[in-house]
């Protein structure tokens, strides 16, 4: 009992920075080798990209201190040794990238719409927002306000949609497409599972037809054929025609995604709701859809991100979205050869929006999971 115990070395650290490094980066020799290789690649790549995008880049002035007005004045075209990005093209064309050809004296309308969009998204993003109900009501009427504000009416001069462009068109198409396609998709999904053969047949036909056709075809259809279906004398706006096509396309995909969620709901949920005397719509809106949509959040966001990026296809039918403006700028002799800068900028803007959506979906999943064990029945 009285033997002296030899003192031992402290155990290998498993906590703190050292412990983290040991477990995650240098666990065994393959792991260490990969870590070293990745560090080497980052060492080669990161300084170069930082140098190109920031340290050696021109923002407004070139290295001689002149304000850049065309590609010849870019530092890298004056002296290849000073080769960084020439962001001046974005600076000079910024207005077009954000507003298209919207008249400058009316641009406040677009700015207000952007601000209102941000406010409309607030109650969706922050569930603990004070006065959330009032904000939500604003979210519902926002599209109507934005429509009149951007398009004209109530004393505001009309701005034809062919003057719209850049981020404005991208956001209008993306947001409207996603927002309208969701309820239509829900109805189509319910319809497809309906016991009434006429309704389910119609939904199946619609979904399969729209899904079986490329978006570009639908865009052409919207542009060329939709006017043929309208009564004579009614001219549908070009942007609206494209919106119809985009919404139809997205709603078919949304329907299938939500149907997937519906199929995961056990029949017992339907029976319990029925046995309590709930009607079909009550049952679906209170019991079935909240659960089905919850499990479908990842694919819903997935198709929404897909649509947001697919809006760039409208360039085919002559609308100038963000990418369209970029390509237009590239074709300008003043800015020839600046494709890196322009595509980098366009990608960055798209990335910011899609990354935001994907983070939002993660947040939703996390929030909705708390306290609920969907597996238990």
């Amino acid at each position: 009992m009285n033997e002296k115990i030899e003192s031992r070395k402290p155990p290998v650290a498993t906590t703190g920075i050292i412990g983290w490094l040991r477990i995650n980066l240098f666990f065994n020799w393959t792991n260490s080798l990969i870590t070293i290789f990745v560090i080497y690649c980052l060492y080669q790549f990161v300084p170069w990209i930082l140098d190109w995008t920031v340290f050696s880049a021109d923002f407004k002035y070139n290295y001689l201190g002149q304000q850049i007005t065309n590609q010849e004045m870019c530092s890298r075209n004056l002296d290849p040794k000073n080769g960084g990005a020439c962001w001046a093209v974005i600076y000079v064309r910024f207005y077009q990238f954000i507003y298209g050809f919207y008249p400058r004296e009316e641009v406040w309308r677009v700015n207000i719409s952007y601000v209102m969009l941000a406010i409309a998204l607030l109650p969706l993003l922050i569930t603990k927002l004070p006065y959330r109900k009032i904000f939500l009501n604003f979210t519902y009427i926002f599209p109507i306000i934005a429509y009149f504000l951007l398009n004209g009416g109530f004393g505001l001069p009309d701005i034809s949609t062919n003057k719209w462009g850049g981020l404005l068109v991208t956001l209008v198409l993306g947001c409207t497409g996603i927002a309208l396609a969701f309820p239509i998709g829900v109805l189509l999904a319910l319809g497809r599972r309906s016991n009434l053969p006429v309704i389910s047949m119609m939904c199946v036909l619609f979904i399969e037809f729209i899904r079986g056709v490329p978006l570009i075809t639908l865009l052409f259809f919207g542009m060329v054929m939709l006017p043929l279906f309208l009564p004579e004398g009614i001219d549908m706006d070009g942007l609206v025609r494209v919106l119809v096509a985009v919404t139809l396309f997205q709603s078919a995909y949304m329907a299938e995604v939500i149907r997937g969620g519906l199929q995961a709901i056990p029949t017992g949920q339907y029976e319990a709701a029925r046995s309590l005397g709930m009607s079909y719509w009550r049952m679906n809106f209170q019991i079935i859809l909240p659960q089905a949509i919850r499990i479908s959040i990842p694919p819903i966001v997935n198709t929404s991100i897909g649509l947001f990026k697919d809006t760039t296809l409208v360039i085919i039918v002559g609308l100038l979205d963000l990418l369209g403006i970029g390509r237009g700028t590239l074709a300008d002799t003043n800015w020839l050869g600046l494709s890196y800068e322009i595509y980098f900028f366009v990608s960055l803007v798209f990335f910011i929006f899609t990354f935001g959506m994907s983070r939002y979906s993660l947040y939703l999943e996390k929030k909705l999971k708390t306290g609920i064990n969907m597996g238990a029945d």
Partner: protein
Amino acid sequence: MSEESIISLKNVNKWFGDFHVLQDVNLEVKKKERIVVCGPSGSGKSTMIRCINRLEEHQEGSIIVDGIELTGNLKNIDNVRKEVGMVFQQFNLFPHLSVKENITLAPIWVKKMPKAEAEELAMRQLEIVKIPEQANKYPGQLSGGQQQRVAIARSLAMNPNIMLFDEPTSALDPEMIKEVLDVMVDLANGGMTMIVVTHEMGFAKTVADRMVFMDEGKIVEEASPDKFFNNPESDRTKLFLSQILHQ
């Protein structure tokens, strides 16, 4: 006799495809009567009680519940469902709603009850099933026995005249069966009309007014518990009882 019946099944037939699940089923249930239905699996006992609130459609014969005949008429079906509560083997609680919301949902939306009143009602029902402290939890956080008691409270909140139980204890761990059966015994003593599909013979002996034994889609024997357990008429019943009581 037929006048005082609250549930009346006459020559009910039902097929699943070629399978004849219910064959000329006749059953009369009086007000406040407690019926226990038993029989081997696949004998049609669940199907029969599911026909009573039209979760299944019967194809021939007539089912009259509280004076309302069950037909394709959706309004009639909704009216019957308001009268008839049902408790399922798998509880079927709504997992995205809290216990309290599970109970208040139907009173608020189907009976148009004000929210505060419905919540008070929910708490009263939870007292009856002896778990008022679980009101704000979600079903996934409760044990099976607690979930089944919430399911009973949810049905009772609609103030039904008739309660149907479809093997309410079959999905429970043995030590939780008693807490659910106790609630059901209380309910029976309170005068509720009940049809219970179960293999809990102890429960049947204490509460049943009448035993119904089904096999292969037919009602084979209908008797008082005393006669049913001690002196059954049919050989099929004897065989079933000998199997189930010698476990």
